[in-house]
């Protein structure tokens, strides 16, 4: 084989390898990104599925500044204190909307674990918490709508009349 032809073939081989490697690199990067995105999506869906709650009953009376209600963990996973405290509470009636975050003062809510049989301080599946919503104003007679939203957006609603 002449020397010139050998050089051309070698150059072409190197060029083809570089192009193939570049293409493979780009392809792998894209594929990794897609896989990561898919993993994130699955994780997000899992979170939505795992953490769920249900308001069993709510009670208050006219003139009171407190609404007490009981929420059951009907999901698959237990919630540590930190995540329970990230829940939000929305109370609304015809004239007023309350948006309450966890706290000890008025216009906030707090909770206590009722049947923490394993005594781990976590809100396990099937366990119930007693939530007390403290409002800045007394409740007047009428219908109220409660929505308790967990950290992941899972929610439970309840209609209450006082």
């Amino acid at each position, binding site marked *: 084989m002449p020397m010139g032809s050998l050089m*051309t*073939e*070698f150059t*072409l*081989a190197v*060029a*083809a*390898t570089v*192009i*193939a*490697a570049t*293409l*493979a690199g780009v*392809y*792998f990067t894209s*594929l*990794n990104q897609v*896989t990561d995105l*898919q*993993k994130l999506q*699955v994780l997000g*869906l*899992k979170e939505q*599925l795992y953490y769920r709650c*249900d308001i*069993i*009953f709510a*009670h208050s*009376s006219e003139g009171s500044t407190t609404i*007490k209600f*009981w929420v*059951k963990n*009907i999901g*698959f996973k237990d919630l540590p204190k930190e995540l329970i405290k990230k829940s939000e509470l929305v109370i609304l009636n015809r004239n007023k909307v309350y948006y309450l975050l966890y706290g000890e003062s008025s216009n906030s809510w707090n909770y206590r674990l*009722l*049947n923490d*049989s394993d005594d781990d301080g976590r809100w396990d599946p*099937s*366990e*119930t918490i*007693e939530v007390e919503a403290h409002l800045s104003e007394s409740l007047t007679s009428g219908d109220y709508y409660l929505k308790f939203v967990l950290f992941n957006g899972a929610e439970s609603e309840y209609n209450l009349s006082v």
Partner: protein
Amino acid sequence: MSSLGGLIVFAVLTAVSLAAMGCLMMATVAHNQFFIERIKFMEKIGERCRGYLEIESMAKLQDNRTVEAVIKNMGAGSISVKDFDEIDLIIIYRNSNGSIRAEWLPYDPSESLERGWRALNITYNGVDELKNPIAPDMSSGFWDDDESLAIKAWISSGQDIADEFMLIMVAPNGVRTR
């Protein structure tokens, strides 16, 4: 293209294809796992939709702070006696002051707490249960479908049930009284 270049490109593309197939398989496995979990969850939801608890009878005792009730498991699934502490029992009543109160009562088989509830027995059509019978000391057994659970519940001594009352019971899986 030269034969050497062609071979290298072919080898690289084959490697890429194999790796891509591997990634695809991993993604499929992840999806399958999620799908299985979803089915499990749907089963749980289905169980909750299907069943309910029915209060067959309830009565207030003379001390005005104790009630007895019989609750039938209408397709809520078998509930282990060991999980009775995860059952919620809420009593709603009007006291002699005229105010309506609602109290969540803890499971208290030894009746040592000031307020609580305990199971008295489980029967099937009025006779001893046939399936998964409970031990006399309530240490084992199940409250199965179509069986009736008799309970006793009591409120704190400072309160009284003036007239009518309501009971809400929720099983560990979220099935509740209708």
